[in-house]
């Protein structure tokens, strides 16, 4: 599917979901910033649409940019081999507070283990369409004080602890 065609289709399927269109790094792959409230609806549409059929979440990455957590979804179609990058963000309020964000585990099964990691290391509560969040077994050492992949986390491993928020 042509990229312009894909954009038109997205605008028709989930109006107002796309905030901005970008090119990703030197690979220049299409990268769309998505309204966080409409992320799940858009992903369901992209997965089920017979022309797009973006059925595989290859990778899900999170990072902190200034005071926001940015989520990047690398998705592709196993049939057409088309690829698309979706991005969404949420503002950080306090270093110790968990933040709610839409879970995509119900859309792509492979999102679940990656959400589990990000939930623990970035302090996110991924909530499904019913507003419920999964109770995960811990994926990381239980002596982190805070959320280690946030920039506010200070690593003082030399003192025998794993630090905490600044």
């Amino acid at each position, binding site marked *: 599917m042509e990229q312009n065609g894909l954009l038109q289709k997205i605008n028709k399927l989930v109006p107002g979901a796309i905030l901005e269109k970008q090119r*990703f*790094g*030197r*690979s220049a792959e299409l990268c769309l910033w998505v309204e966080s409230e409409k992320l799940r609806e858009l992903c369901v549409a992209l997965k089920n649409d017979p022309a797009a059929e973006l*059925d*595989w*979440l*290859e*990778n899900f*990455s*999170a*990072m*902190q940019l200034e005071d926001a957590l940015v989520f*990047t979804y*690398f998705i592709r179609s*196993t049939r057409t*081999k088309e690829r698309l*990058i979706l991005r969404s963000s949420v503002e950080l309020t306090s270093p110790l507070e968990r933040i709610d964000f839409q879970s995509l585990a119900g859309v*792509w*099964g*492979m999102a*679940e*283990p*990656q959400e589990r*990691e990000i939930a623990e*290391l970035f302090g996110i509560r991924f909530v499904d369409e019913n507003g419920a969040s999964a109770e995960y*077994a*811990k*994926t*990381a*050492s*239980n002596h*982190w004080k805070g959320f*280690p*992949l946030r920039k506010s*986390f200070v*690593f003082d491993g030399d003192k025998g602890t*794993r630090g905490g928020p600044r």
Partner: protein
Amino acid sequence: MIESLKTDLTQWEIGPYDHSLPGPMLLRLRLDGELIVAGEVETGFLHRGLEKAFERQLWRSAIPYADRLDPEGAVFGELALCLAAEEIAALEVPSRAQSIRVILSELTRISAHMGYIVRVARAVGSETMVHYVLRDREKILDLFELATGARVSLNFLRFGGVQADVTEGFIERVLEICELLRIRLKEYNDLFTYNHAFIKRTRGIGTIAPEVARTFGVTGPNARASGISFDVRKEHPYSGYDFLDFEVPIGRRESQHLGDANHRFLLRLQEISTSIEILKQSAEAISPGPFALRKPEESFEVPRGEAYIRIESSRGLLGCHLVSDGGAYPARIQFRPPSLALLSVLPQLVRGIRIEDLPVVLATLDIGIAEADR
């Protein structure tokens, strides 16, 4: 008397440290007699905070940390990191360095698959096979030592090339080992692969159906054993794989045992053959010229930008999302390890198998706990 025996479900916990497990992890099983009716996995016992540690390293010193992503396939972590940084910095890696990277990658793949054969052989109780394969694997580790000075954690790749040119006699020894491994593969097959006891222990158990592999994002030899034709070396060639002529083995869709433990084992043996072919071509075609763009001791900083790179590790698709803010330290390095998907699919695979088959299913999946925990 028998009718009055209690037949309640029992609960077992295996791990986090147990010889039948692929690494530190906890398996909670519910058993009906010898039959597993449900399983849950808990991980995190090997979590080292690797992705946080990267943020505290200068660019150059991040490479040995990438080695630790999966100690059994150290070069894959290094390669993914280097390729991502090189894409941001728009570095064209010299052809000789690319060939050296491919040779080290394929030697690592063979070495990792041999480690896999050893674990499967142990799980089914074939000690002879364990000794034969370990004997041959030593020869590959000798080659690593010859080229890089290290046997496991190589720390040899550099941004823009490799640390040093290959040592004298290395290419000749790579070609020699290709011939030796061809003979050894036949020996493994005669001794083990087509042994009826081995087939009986592995056939029809722990089957990953193609749709299950797709749902959970299983990649690599486990997915290919389920008939899924996906290999990053073919789909998104890197380091010159597009100039090499090789076939990726895929499980036969017409087989009634597609995706079972036996298929996964056979596919890895076929992958060793493929790697031998790639090694031969790379070693024969290696071109003279520089092995790096810059002197290894020169400092290096990645300009502001980001990249997402995927490579084919011995366990499947290894992704690396790298973000640089132009500073002396990486802003974010995130890895997408293939073993994460295997841990998700594991509860489904153990359901319905007998407890005696659990070590075989675990061994044939080749889960890398080090990369999953990170």
